[in-house]
């Protein structure tokens, strides 16, 4: 009876944890299979334990090249989308102007569009213009679809900002530039950082839009896609595991910094 009662009371917790397990199961499998020594081309069945792939992560030809290309694209896409997105977010929150509704719709539509539609339409544009598909077309596409997400993230933060703080700075004879650099920007920073992080993750992981607009250039997700047909090297699992660990550490670190700031203020 008590067991049944306990189960009843914690039903939500149990169901939630099961969902979490479902969400993380593939990551566990990826980690386990990064220590596999597969027979043949495909790494789908457990054979025997080996650390060979971890000792030689770049042992597969072209893989690390595609990885570094993806990192470069993600970096520049983050810079571009964050810059353009932050400007739009400030304009939308801080100013009243004509065409606000139209601008809001234009920002929202890319997020409400299936990726394959954007990918295909962008390809028709590039084909019509006779553009050379490659690094630049990928970068253009990535900045385009990351932009809306940055705007949304920064807008949320700027909207919750107290405008009186800036008025106070101006009352204390700070110029517009000084107010922006010393007051506005530091307060908006967490929103901008969240937008930038999202842009980086979206760009680094994008497959569908890149697949359409990359031509013969191979980014890391495209390398993984190709290897699913040809045979997946264990090194792919090593990269997947490393990315997961780095992401967790990164988020933990940024949370720790945030907590310390809060304590300093208190």
């Amino acid at each position, binding site marked *: 009876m008590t067991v049944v009662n306990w189960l009843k009371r914690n039903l939500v917790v149990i169901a*939630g944890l099961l969902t979490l397990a479902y969400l993380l*199961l593939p990551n566990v499998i990826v980690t386990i299979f990064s220590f596999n020594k597969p027979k043949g081309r495909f790494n789908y069945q457990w054979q025997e334990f080996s650390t060979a792939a971890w000792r030689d992560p770049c042992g597969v030809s072209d893989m690390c090249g595609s990885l570094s290309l993806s990192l470069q694209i993600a970096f520049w896409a983050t810079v571009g989308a964050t810059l353009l997105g932050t400007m739009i977010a400030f304009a939308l929150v801080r100013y009243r102007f004509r065409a606000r509704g139209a601008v809001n719709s234009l920002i929202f539509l890319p997020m409400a569009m*299936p990726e394959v*539609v954007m990918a295909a339409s962008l390809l028709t*544009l590039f084909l019509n213009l006779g553009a050379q598909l490659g690094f630049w077309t990928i970068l253009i596409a990535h900045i385009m679809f990351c*932009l809306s997400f940055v705007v949304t993230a920064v807008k949320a933060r700027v909207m919750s900002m107290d405008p009186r703080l800036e008025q106070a700075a101006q009352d204390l004879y700070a110029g517009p530039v000084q107010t922006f650099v010393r007051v506005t920007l530091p307060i908006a920073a967490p929103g901008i950082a969240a937008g930038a992080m999202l842009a980086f993750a979206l760009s680094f992981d994008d497959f569908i839009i890149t697949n359409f607009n990359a031509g013969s250039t191979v980014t890391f997700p495209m390398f993984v896609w190709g290897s699913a047909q040809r045979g997946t090297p264990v090194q792919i699992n090593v990269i997947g595991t490393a990315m997961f660990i780095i992401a967790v550490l990164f988020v*933990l670190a940024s949370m720790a910094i945030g907590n310390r700031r809060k304590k300093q203020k208190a």
Partner: protein
Amino acid sequence: MATVTEAPPLAPTPEEPKPPRKRGRWTPYWLLLPGILWLLVFFAMPMIYQASTSVQTGSLEEGYKVTWHFATYWDALSEYYPQFLRSVLYAGSATILCLLLGYPLAYLIAFRAGRWRNLIMILVIAPFFTSFLIRTLAWKTILADGGPVVGALNTLHVLDVTSWLGMTEGDRVLATPLAVVCGLTYNFLPFMVLPLYTSLERIDPRLHEAAGDLYARPVTTFRRVTFPLSMPGVVSGTLLTFIPAAGDYVNADLLGSTDTRMVGNVIQTQFLRILDYPTAAALSFILMAAILVMVTLYIRRSGTEDLV
């Protein structure tokens, strides 16, 4: 483009009670210019190019010309309507599964996690940063023929039921609709959990206590208080799951077979392999229009305006 411009602002911004500034009348336009130009040139203009491509005829060798050949739309629809229906069916199933699975997790993070909240949040977000293709491929291992998952489902006679429903074939899961729906559910689950969590977190826990004080049982509290208040999260979560799932072709390709192809797969093949641009453009336009119509109707019906 008509469908695009006529679409209502799907995510209306909450009220912004900021006083208008007198100084710098042109400042907002300068701030907007580069980003909006980028979106107009690389998002809106491509849509126009795609619309024009869809009514062209010709061949790759001789070039295409706009001939207002609307029959392409009809031909594309009559040839590929099974893939369209499949996309709606798979994406719809995945969305419902995401809601059923994601709600308890979001509820757990919002109300029951305590000091574990941050850790669970990290574990929900972290997969975003690791390649989703690698994780989707991992499902091939998990659902492998004769593997533990398939064995367990067989022992529990689940596969008999799903086979009867046409979701699986024999004692296989891989290369069946079930595998594709499972992959879609998995891939878009965080997009359901995060908005649900955001709207659940805004609920004042005292409302739960009040419901309890008024002798509402937990189930009644959930049905009458918690769930209605989380509706904005439910609406935006289902949209964020359904829209990308309907256009996805990665799951159907990696986990499915030729019998599980969705619209995305057709568009991808037409565009990148067969190079039949008018048909591909028409298909992608139909998909876009269908989704915009469905989303608009859904938002009207659910009657919630504050989505973000």
